[in-house]
């Protein structure tokens, strides 16, 4: 009885010390978002997310490499919590999914008001006050901010046309003999 209780307590104390020391001296610095995300994950280290444990999964989430639904054991609740936590930080507005486009300024309409110039984060628009502005198409990332601010609607957005140098073969279509009547 005494041996039992004693030895068990001793083991626990020892292990506690070891872990305490370990945590003290071997602590790994982690970024706060990562730490937050990790705290939201179940911590069961099951590896089902495809990462070898919750910490790497949190890291991937923090880097935006993994979907919030990655954690199977966590289920819906964890996904929601993750989304909430990430939602505050990273607002993935739609422009990523939109087709790539670029802005064109109609010289006839441009009054040189400089508003678009001030909006453009990549300095894709050149021009000076009271002069006609133009867009350097190569520098335009298609955010359409200039399109929204132009008072005379001189800016139009155009889909980027492929040219001969950029053209490439399409991916072969799925086997036409199969999957034609897929129900799901």
């Amino acid at each position: 009885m005494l041996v039992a209780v004693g030895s068990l307590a001793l083991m626990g104390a020892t292990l506690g010390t070891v872990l305490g020391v370990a945590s003290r001296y071997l602590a790994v610095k982690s970024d706060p978002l990562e730490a937050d995300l990790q705290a939201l994950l179940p911590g069961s280290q099951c590896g089902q997310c495809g990462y070898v444990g919750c910490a790497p999964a949190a890291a991937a989430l923090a880097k935006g490499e993994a979907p919030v639904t990655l954690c199977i054991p966590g289920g819906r609740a964890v996904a929601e919590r993750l989304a909430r936590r990430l939602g505050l930080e990273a607002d993935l507005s739609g422009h990523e999914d939109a087709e790539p486009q670029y802005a064109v300024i109609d010289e006839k309409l441009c009054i040189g008001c400089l508003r678009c110039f001030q909006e453009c984060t990549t300095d894709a628009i050149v021009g000076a006050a009271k002069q006609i502005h133009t867009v350097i198409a190569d520098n335009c990332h298609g955010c359409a901010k200039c399109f929204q601010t132009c008072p005379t609607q001189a800016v139009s957005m155009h889909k980027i046309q492929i040219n001969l140098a950029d053209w490439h073969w399409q991916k072969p279509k799925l086997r036409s003999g199969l999957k034609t009547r897929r129900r799901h």
Partner: protein
Amino acid sequence: MIVFRNDRSGPFTHAPNSVRAVMVTVMLALTPATLFDLWLFGWPAVFLFTVTVGACVVFEAACLQLQGKLLLPALGDGSAVLTGWLLAMTLPPWAPWWIGVLGAVFAIALAKHLFGGIGQNVFNPAMVARVALLVSFPVPMTAFTLPRPLFSAGAPGFLDSLSITFGHAVGLDTISAASALGTIKTELSRGVPVTQSMAETPDLLHMLIGLRPGSMGETSALLILLGGLWLLHRKVISWHVPVAMMTTLFALGALFHAVAPDRFTSGVFQLVSGATFLGAFFIATDYVTSPVSRSGQVVYGFGCGFLTWIIRTFAGYPEGVAFAVLLMNALTPLIDRAFRPRTFGRTRAGTPLPLPPRKKP
């Protein structure tokens, strides 16, 4: 103005081959052995063969239908027929019909279509079916019968045969005879040395010709061998798997037999008994489940031979080809990873070759 199709990149010439042609060639190679065996084991064998192949085709169609895939291209390639055919070749010829039907479920539904259909399965469907049946129904799956050639005396008539396959006319005990490997394994478990029990098995020539109890694929070793050689000749299969497998099996058999003839059967016996030839030429060579590179195929063949010998010699089951093939199937992705051809201009490790040392003129 004529507009031409430009939806596909080259090449614009293709070899006149197709999956169906490949499968048909394999079936042709199997035909002599199959006909011989159907004759050897009579109507029940014919019925079982028909049921098995038919069930495979039916389940193939059902699986395609369920998944909403087109029936024709997949059914037409003949792979389901071939799977059923090979499965039937590994069953005891007088097994009841439901063995064939359940086998088709295991092979086609479980091992093939759950993985996405032809080409995508990781395990050999026919062997999955055979092993699943063996494990599930050891009694009917090890009840072999002595050859009773069609129209010979002692062969069951058509009606009798119907009830052998579809009813329960014959008690298993009355027909059952062990295969050569089975006999040796059983006798060994009683402590009878191999040298002695070998006397009870048919002599090697009979084994080769096939006048002995066993499954269809076992009992026509010679014709199977010929069919296999023809496949080699037609370049449908390459020599790597069969040669590696048979050499390994023979070498292990011969070596251990030389050391302890009481315990180990000879190399020649290993070759002619069981499904060695069928396995080496028709089963281990299944494209889908074997490595794609030549070097990988040699390793795979070696593994099949080695595991077959291990299982035959030490494990509980008398015949090891099916298990060996499945085990090597499992290793195939790793073999594919490890044994790939060397890329032109690169070392095996994948780094660009060093420039050759060159003299300045």
